């Protein structure tokens, strides 16, 4: 299943790739400025004017052997650059994802239970701010407040002192994952972890506020719908108290649609938030992708499309598994 979906994605991506002229595509093989004049030769050498299906299978073979082409934005092969940028985005998501899910579901549940009370209105205001204020504006306000006026949470990935220390003592700090918060712990350097967390605080907060709004609203409406269902009255007629009704009966049912939204949001934020990464100067997947899109760095765009295809396929798989765990009606047995 997974393989077929990915093959489909690759055909689509290749179709887009074929809309570019052979000359354009030949640029992906150019690694130095001197090579530019050899373009006709490159086209011939790599068969860029061959029939589409021949090129497609050749491209597939290259991709599957890890040859994803050269990224002039990153000045490295796409494969290497990808593994360099991924930890930065992954680190951000590692902190935002659980926060988004926990806060979104908890606030949504409370807003649904206490519909039309001050709590509900408060979460509504919160959601409107998060959802309608542009991310870049919100991120800039945060940066202005907590770095400009109160220099508590600096942008970037890690402090200069720590950066210097790591550069000067490459033997004392080994990069296991590329994520400083985790590497700090693995190296037994709590100060590095804390410093990295200090740099992470603002982007994480911005990302959570922006993304949590949607999840919260979905959870709220789902909860309200479940509370008005017939089985809730059955439970009430049995003598159930509100707590049992809300948390034992309604919430689990209300989670079913929320799982889908949560899954999509997680997959979506794997693409990296361009605004957050640029404003807080964290060069991750989102930043790289944005730069590549501007500079028409085709191999990067192609490779990333395939990567996001994979992310979405895996996310859907996880959503399906979670569905089966929550809802006995769709279990196969």
């Amino acid at each position, binding site marked *: 299943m997974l393989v077929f979906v990915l093959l489909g994605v690759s055909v689509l991506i290749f179709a887009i790739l074929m809309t570019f002229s052979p000359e354009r595509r030949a640029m992906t093989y150019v690694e130095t400025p001197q090579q530019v004049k050899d373009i006709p030769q490159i086209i011939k050498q790599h068969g860029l004017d061959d029939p589409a299906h021949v090129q497609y299978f050749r491209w597939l073979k290259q991709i599957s052997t890890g040859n994803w082409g050269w990224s002039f934005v990153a000045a490295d092969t796409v494969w290497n650059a990808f593994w360099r940028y991924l930890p930065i985005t992954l680190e951000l998501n590692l902190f935002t994802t659980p926060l988004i899910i926990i806060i979104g579901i908890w606030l949504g549940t409370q807003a649904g239970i206490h519909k039309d009370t001050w709590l509900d209105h408060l979460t509504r205001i919160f959601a409107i701010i998060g959802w309608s204020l542009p991310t870049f504006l919100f991120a800039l306000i945060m940066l202005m407040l907590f770095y400009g006026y109160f220099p508590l949470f600096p942008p970037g990935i890690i402090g200069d002192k720590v950066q210097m220390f790591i550069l000067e003592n490459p033997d004392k700090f080994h990069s296991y994952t590329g994520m400083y918060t985790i590497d700090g712990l693995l190296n037994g350097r709590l100060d590095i972890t804390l410093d990295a967390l200090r740099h992470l605080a603002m982007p994480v907060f911005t990302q959570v506020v922006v993304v949590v709004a949607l999840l919260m609203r979905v959870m709220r409406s789902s909860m309200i719908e479940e509370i*008005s*269902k*017939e*089985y809730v*009255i*059955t*439970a*009430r*007629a*049995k*003598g*159930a*108290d509100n707590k*049992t009704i809300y948390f034992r*009966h309604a919430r*689990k*049912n209300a989670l079913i649609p929320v799982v889908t939204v949560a899954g999509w949001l997680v997959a979506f934020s794997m693409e990296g938030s361009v605004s957050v990464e640029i404003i807080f100067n964290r060069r991750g997947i989102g930043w790289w992708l944005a730069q590549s899109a501007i500079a028409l760095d085709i191999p990067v765009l192609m490779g990333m499309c395939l990567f996001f295809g994979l992310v979405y396929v895996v996310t859907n798989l996880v959503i399906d598994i979670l569905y089966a765990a*929550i*809802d*006995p*009606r769709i279990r196969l047995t």
Partner: protein
Amino acid sequence: MPKLIETRDLVTNFYTYEGVVKALNKVGLVIERGTTFGLVGESGCGKSVTARSMMRVVQEPGRIEGGQVLFYPGEDGQEAVELLSQSEAYMQSLRGDQISMIFQEPNAALNPIMTIGDQVAESFLFHRKKEMCAKVLEDLKTADLPWPGLKKLLEFFYRRAAADPGDRLCCWASRTPILKRWQQRLFREARRRSVEIIAALDIANADQVVDRYPHNLSGGMKQRILIAMALACEPLLLIADEATSNLDVTIQAQILDLLRKLKKKSISSILLITHDLGVVAETCDRVGVMYAGSVCEVARVGELFRNPLHPYTRALLDAVPKFSVSGQLKSVEGNVPNLVDPPSGCRFHPRCPLRRKICAQRLPELALAGPDHLVACHLAGGRSGSAQVWGGR
């Protein structure tokens, strides 16, 4: 017969966007101990709302606005408890224990993602916790446990819970990981009881059914499960809200038979809400007819079918298909009035073939028109016994 539950001038309104729906307009009913009371009427006439108001489970945006619901828990029917002024906690202890309800849609009335066993066991866990803890404590004396400390700990918890089901320490322990496993024996006991009650309702393989989910069962089975849930704590009053309407005829007969048997054995009274007059004739002792939020006639079942006094009751009885009569089926002219803006006076008057001037001006009150026969109609004439005003059929 002593009274069991009584409503007086019950008013329930629904606050919708279209306006205030006056669903109940001073409903007064008396249900006696040990009888089956049938409540009939068209859809949307307030039968279910009456039952739900009695249990105080009216859903948003509905609100009980006035009147009284008097519950007589004692054998002699003397001491009354006014349910509308009681606390929510009191109502919770009452619901499912003394008054319980079976619902119209067995498909919607069961939680789709909880096992049957868990849902039935809830009834026991809400109302029989004390008793069950005592039972577990008894069993613990002879139980073999891996180490003696565990037995002490379990006994400690169960002794506390048996003394007071809402014990703070026990509640805290029930929420703490690992520690919450102290309740396992309690759950096992509740499950054992659930299997027992499900088996008592003629369901085969009860010990397997408890582990299934609602979607694995047929409609009739689900209805039985709902009945099992309602009967778990042997209530004084069972409200069957269109309990058989959505089942096919054979299953319907089975369920009604079951209710009759159970009534003899354990339950004191049944309030049977239905729009099927055949079911009423077969199972009820007394019948109340409702129209547009008010009760128009209450009588013993034989009397009502023999001598219907309210024009609406007559129309309703005429609308029942009869095998012996050929020709077109009679229907009640017009539609059920919009309860946002109900007709003045008697709510039936716009559709009544015998309306007089007074009908549009004044709401007729329920009055005695014969032995144990109440009717709310200006023409059926209360105590004066002028039931013959509009002649025979």
